[in-house]
C-alpha cells in the first residue's frame, strides 16, 4: 500500500512536471504558394520548418509544435487578413518566411501590434531592420542592402560604373534600387536612369530596350523570381550582353537559374546567403530536403526558414516559455548556430548576421550534375555583409 502510494505520487508529480514544462507552439508559414515566388519559398518553406522541428526533436524536449501554412498571393491585404486571423483566433505564436516585401512590411506591423514573433526569411526590403524595424521581428536570410553591397560593389569593381535599373514597381524593387544606387554612387559610379515595371510582369522587351538605349554599362534587374527569369531570358534575346552591356540580376535564386538553364544564365554574378553545395552539412540537409520537395534543392529562403525556426525553438527551450518578449530577448542574446548558415548573431535591430557569398553561374560545360550551378567568387564576412547598425535609422538602436 505504501509502495502503491509512492508510485501514484511520483506519477502525479511527473504529470505535473510534464504539464509545467510542455509548451505548445504554433508556427504559421505564410508565403506565396501559387504565384511567381512559389518555387523559391512556397511548400518548400513549410517542409523546411517541419525539418527544423524534427531535427530539433522538439517533442522530446517538451515543446509541442504544430505548423500551419497559407498562401498570401503576394497581396498585402490578403497577407494581413491571414496574419490577423492566425494571431487572433488560431493562436499562432510565430509567423515565418513571408516573401514579397510589401506583404512582409504589413505582417511586421501586425506582429508588433499583437506582440508575437515574425521570423522573416523571404522578404528582401532592408526597411524591416531600418525605419520599419520592430522588437518582434528577426530578418534572417538576406536584405536589399546586402544584395546591393555584394553584387553592386562587385560590378563597379569590374568597371561597371554606369547603371540603368529595371525595377519591380513595389516596396521590394524600390528598396533594392535605392540601396544599389547608394552603393554604385558611393563607389564612384553613376546611375543614368531607371524604369519601373508593373509587378508581376511578363514582357520586358520595352524596358530592356530603354535600358539598351541608355548606354549604361550595367543593366541592374531590381526584381525577383518569375520577373527576373523573364527579364534575363529576354535580355539574352535582345542581345544586351552581346552589345557590351553587363547584366546584374540583383536578386537571383538557384531555382531561377534552374528555370533559365545554364545556356542563358551562365556568367551572371549574384549575391546569396546559402548554397546547397557549400560543405558536407549543407549537402546532407539539401539531400534530405530534395527528397521531400519534389526534387528541388533548397533556396536560400527555405534554408533561412529552417535555420530561423531552429533558433526560435532553441530560445523557447532555454526560456521554458513562449512569451514573445522573453523569447526575442533570448534569441538576440544567444549566438546562433545551425548546419546551414554556421555561427552567427542577431543584432538589436533584428538583423541576423552571417557571411554572404558572391556567386557566379557556371558555364554549361563546368556543371557536373543537375543543380551544380554556382561557383563561389568571394565570401563577404558577416561584419561587412550587412548595413552597419547605426546607418539603418532603426528606433530600437540608441
Amino acid at each position: 500500500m505504501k509502495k502503491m502510494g509512492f508510485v501514484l505520487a511520483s506519477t502525479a508529480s511527473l504529470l505535473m512536471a510534464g504539464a509545467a514544462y510542455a509548451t505548445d507552439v504554433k508556427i504559421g508559414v505564410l508565403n506565396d504558394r501559387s504565384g511567381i515566388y512559389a518555387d523559391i519559398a512556397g511548400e518548400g518553406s513549410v517542409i523546411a520548418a517541419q525539418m527544423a522541428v524534427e531535427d530539433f526533436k522538439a517533442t522530446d524536449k517538451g515543446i509541442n509544435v504544430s505548423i500551419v501554412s497559407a498562401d498570401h498571393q503576394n497581396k498585402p491585404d490578403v497577407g494581413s487578413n491571414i496574419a490577423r486571423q492566425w494571431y487572433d483566433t488560431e493562436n499562432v505564436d510565430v509567423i515565418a518566411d513571408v516573401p514579397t516585401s510589401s506583404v512582409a512590411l504589413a505582417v511586421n506591423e501586425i506582429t508588433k501590434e499583437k506582440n508575437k514573433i515574425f521570423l522573416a526569411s523571404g522578404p528582401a526590403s532592408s526597411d524591416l531592420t531600418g525605419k520599419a524595424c520592430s522588437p518582434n521581428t528577426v530578418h534572417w536570410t538576406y536584405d536589399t542592402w546586402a544584395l546591393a553591397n555584394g553584387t553592386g560593389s562587385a560590378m563597379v569593381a569590374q568597371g561597371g560604373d554606369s547603371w540603368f535599373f529595371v525595377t519591380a514597381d513595389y516596396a521590394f524593387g524600390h528598396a533594392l534600387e535605392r540601396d544599389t544606387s547608394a552603393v554604385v554612387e558611393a563607389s564612384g559610379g553613376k546611375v543614368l536612369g531607371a524604369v519601373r515595371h508593373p509587378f508581376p510582369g511578363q514582357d520586358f522587351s520595352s524596358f530592356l530596350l530603354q535600358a539598351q538605349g541608355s548606354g549604361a554599362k550595367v543593366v541592374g534587374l531590381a526584381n525577383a523570381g518569375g520577373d527576373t527569369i523573364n527579364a534575363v531570358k529576354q535580355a539574352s534575346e535582345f542581345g544586351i550582353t552581346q552589345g557590351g552591356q553587363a547584366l546584374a540580376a540583383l536578386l537571383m535564386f538557384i531555382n531561377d537559374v534552374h528555370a533559365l538553364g545554364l545556356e542563358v544564365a551562365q556568367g551572371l554574378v549574384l549575391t546569396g546567403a546559402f548554397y546547397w553545395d557549400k560543405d558536407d552539412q549543407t549537402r546532407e540537409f539539401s539531400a534530405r530536403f530534395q527528397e521531400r520537395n519534389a526534387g528541388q534543392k533548397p533556396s536560400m529562403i527555405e534554408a533561412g526558414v529552417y535555420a530561423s525556426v531552429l533558433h526560435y525553438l532553441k530560445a523557447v527551450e532555454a526560456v521554458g516559455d513562449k512569451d514573445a518578449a522573453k523569447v526575442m530577448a533570448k534569441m538576440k542574446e544567444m549566438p546562433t548556430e545551425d548546419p546551414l548558415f554556421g555561427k552567427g548573431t542577431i543584432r538589436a535591430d533584428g538583423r541576423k548576421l552571417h557571411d554572404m557569398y558572391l556567386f557566379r553561374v557556371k558555364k554549361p560545360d563546368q556543371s557536373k550534375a543537375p543543380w551544380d550551378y554556382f561557383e563561389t567568387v568571394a565570401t563577404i564576412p558577416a561584419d561587412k555583409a550587412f548595413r552597419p547598425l547605426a546607418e539603418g535609422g532603426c528606433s530600437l538602436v540608441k
Partner: protein
Amino acid sequence: MFELLGIPPQVLFGQLLLGLINGSFYAVLSLGLAVIFGLLNIINFTHGAQYMLGAFGAWMLLNYLGVGYWWAVFIVPPIVGVTGIVLERVLIRRLYHLDHLYGLLLTFGLALIIVGFFRQFFGVSGLPYRPPPLLNGGYNLGFMYLPNSRAWVIVASLIVCLATWFIIEKTRLGAYLRAATENPTMVGAFGINVPLLVTLTYGFGVALAGFAGVLAAPIYAVNPNMGADLIIVVFAVVVIGGMGSILGSILTGFGLGLIEGLTRVFYPEGSAVVIFVIMALVLLVKPAGLFGRSV
C-alpha cells in the same frame, strides 16, 4: 533631330514595333476567343490555360521526343485543339441552352484545374526552352535591335489572323459558320451538321490559343501561370473590340499592343492598367465595343 515629348524618334519607333509584337499575341488570342464566342456563345475562360498548354506542348515535344520548334508550330496547335474538342464534347456542350454565366464558370474552373495540375508537376519558375538556331540572333534596324524570334512572331501571327479572317468572311465554310451563328435551327434544316460545326469551331479557337503558346515558348518563361497573366488583358481586348467580331478583335489586339507599348515609354508604371482604362471608356461610349453590333 526632332523629339516627341522628350523621347527621341528611334526609341519611339522601337517601342511601337515592340507594341505591335505584343499586339500579335493579343490578336491571335482574342481572335480565338471571338471565334468561340461568336458561334458558341461561350466565354472561354480556359483560353489562357490552353495557351499555356501550347507552350508546354512545344517544350514536351522538344524534351521528351526531341521534336524541334518548327515541327511544334504545326503539330502542337492541332493537339491542343483536340483537347479542346474533347472538353467541348464531354462538358461544354451541356451548357449551350443555359445562361453565359454557366459556361464562364465551367471554363474558369477547368482553367484552374489545368493550371493547378501543371503547377503540381512543373512548379511555377518555368522551364527553359531552347529556341531553334534560326530564331537566335537578329537584325539591327538602326533604331533598334530586332531579334529574329520577335520578327517571326509578328509574321506568323499576321498570317494566321488574315487566314482566319479570310476563311470566316470569304469562304463557303465561313458562310455556313456565320449563318449557324445567326440561326442554327434554320441552317440545320438545310442539312448542315450544326453540332459538328460548333465542335470544330471550338477546337479551332483553342488551336489558335495553342499556336500563340508555341510562339511564346522561345520568348517567355514556359510556366503554368503564363496564360493566367495574359488572359485578363486579352478579355479586355475582346470587350473593347466587340464580343464576337473577328476583324474587330484582330485590329484591337494590334492597336492595344501599340498603346500599351507607348505607355511603357511615357508612364511605365501605368502600362498594366492602360488597357483597362480604355476598356472602361469604350464601354461608356460604345457598350457593344468598337466593332461590335449592338443587339
